[in-house]
């Protein structure tokens, strides 16, 4: 076990030596990885913040059922009990037209005589909350209700929250695809860099092979180089995100003072930050693995 760890320590040191030997190229590589990864991660950060806001909005599908103005009291009672019994209905509130009219008058501070409105224009209405968000179930319920005599109009409220969440979900998927493409680009760029590095160290690879090194032994320092590229790039990504957040929140703070509300962005959690670094390191590792494998394969063909 000690020898195994010593082997890896030796490879890590070799990786660090190679990074130091080409430190300008290595810093460029950190920046390339950092900037490339910061594009999808910034997108995710914005989406995450928008999702957090949308989640704070309590959302239930609500139906407003406006009844015929000429409906009879018995019919209203029948509808009330029928709706109460329905399994989709969570809460039900009946608003008689007289009460609604009084409320409206009080709100608008007017009287019917002054405004020449002699008749109550409002109908009786049921306001119900549903215990489902499934569009199919709600649509079928609305269709059933519309068939009932005495129901004039049905309005579905709160749909915009659902639409907002759907849009956010779609954007998230889009960013995920964009992120995957950018990570693929990263892998290609790192592979090419490590491939060039394998050319520099071709002599070492050849000697190592001739004196009995396994492929794993030869590949290991390159893999550590890739991991270090990933680590450096991941840290640059987090640095860029921090700069974006601080700059945005600075401006947001001033805007908040003018228009009110809370529009500051929250940063990623520690777990999410570690995840970003792991993704970057994984990209670095897989790229260097491919490059080193190719270099060894090419050398093997020469013998």
């Amino acid at each position, binding site marked *: 076990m000690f020898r195994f760890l010593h082997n890896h320590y030796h490879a890590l040191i070799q990786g660090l030596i190679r990074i130091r030997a080409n430190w300008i190229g290595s810093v460029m590589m950190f920046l390339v990885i950092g900037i490339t990864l910061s594009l999808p991660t910034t997108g995710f950060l914005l989406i995450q913040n928008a999702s957090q806001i949308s989640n704070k909005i309590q959302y239930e599908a609500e139906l407003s059922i406006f009844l015929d103005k000429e409906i009879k009291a018995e019919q209203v009672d029948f509808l009330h009990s029928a709706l109460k019994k329905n399994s989709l209905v969570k809460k039900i509130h009946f608003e008689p037209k007289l009460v609604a009219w009084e409320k409206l008058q009080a709100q608008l501070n007017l009287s019917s005589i002054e405004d020449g409105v002699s008749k109550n224009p409002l109908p009786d209405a049921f306001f119900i909350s549903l215990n489902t968000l499934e569009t199919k179930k709600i649509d079928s319920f609305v269709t059933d209700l519309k068939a009932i005599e005495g129901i004039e109009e049905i309005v579905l409220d709160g749909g915009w929250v659902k639409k907002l969440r759907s849009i956010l979900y779609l954007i998230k998927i889009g960013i995920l695809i964009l992120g995957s493409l950018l990570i693929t680009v990263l892998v290609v760029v790192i592979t090419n860099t490590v491939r060039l590095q394998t050319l520099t160290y071709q002599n070492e690879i050849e000697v*190592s092979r*001739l004196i*009995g090194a396994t492929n794993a032994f030869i590949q290991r320092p390159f893999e550590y180089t890739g991991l270090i590229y990933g680590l450096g790039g991941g840290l640059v990504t987090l640095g860029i995100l921090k700069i974006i957040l601080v700059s945005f929140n600075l401006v947001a703070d001033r805007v908040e003072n003018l228009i009110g509300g809370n529009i500051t962005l929250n940063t990623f959690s520690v777990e999410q930050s570690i995840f970003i670094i792991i993704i970057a390191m994984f990209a670095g590792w897989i790229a260097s693995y491919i490059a080193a494998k190719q270099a060894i394969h090419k050398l093997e063909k020469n013998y």
Partner: protein
Amino acid sequence: MIKFTNVYKRYPGEMDVLQDISLAINAGELVFVTGSSGAGKSTLLKLISAVEKPTSGTIFFENQNLSYLKKNEMPFLRRKFGMIFQDHKLLYDRTCFDNVLLPLAINDSDPSDIGRRVRAALNKVGLLEKEKLMPITLSGGEQQRLAIARAIVSRPSVLIADEPTANLDRGYADEIMNIFYSFQQVGVTVIISSHEIPSTQMKYKELHISKGSLNNVPLLT
């Protein structure tokens, strides 16, 4: 220890580099592989050290048929040989110490013992005081001695040297050959390729190759 039976080696698009080679090398022998340039000496050494596989025929090393050796078993076999190359193949971006350390790192040697063994090997070839220098600062003879230190540090049972004195003047060449003789005297099998046999009082075997074929030469003293 090493046995070739009807071995042929052909590279794609070329004639046979080696033809119908049959030979036997016993443990502890000093063997010179001689012949002119392009005769096939280096190819023979590559076959012995399992760097390359024969096109046909069988090669046994310590009763192990190298033809049946799997690709992933090759590196472990190569560790039994100490290889010295004509162009040294030293790593010029690291110190003499680190060059000699490489086979021990590859062999997964005990880390606590590595320093002592590297210095012992450098001492053996007279380069102990130059352990911290970079190989580029050494003379041609010293570089070859460094290559020998790298080959012996993992205490191989066979030392294989491909024209180790080709680019050296007479003084350096004798010095290098004496190092090889000292290893042979402690039981190491030493196989050296050379254009001609160097003058020596040692008991040796000559394998003379001409146009890819082996001309058996009787054991000389």
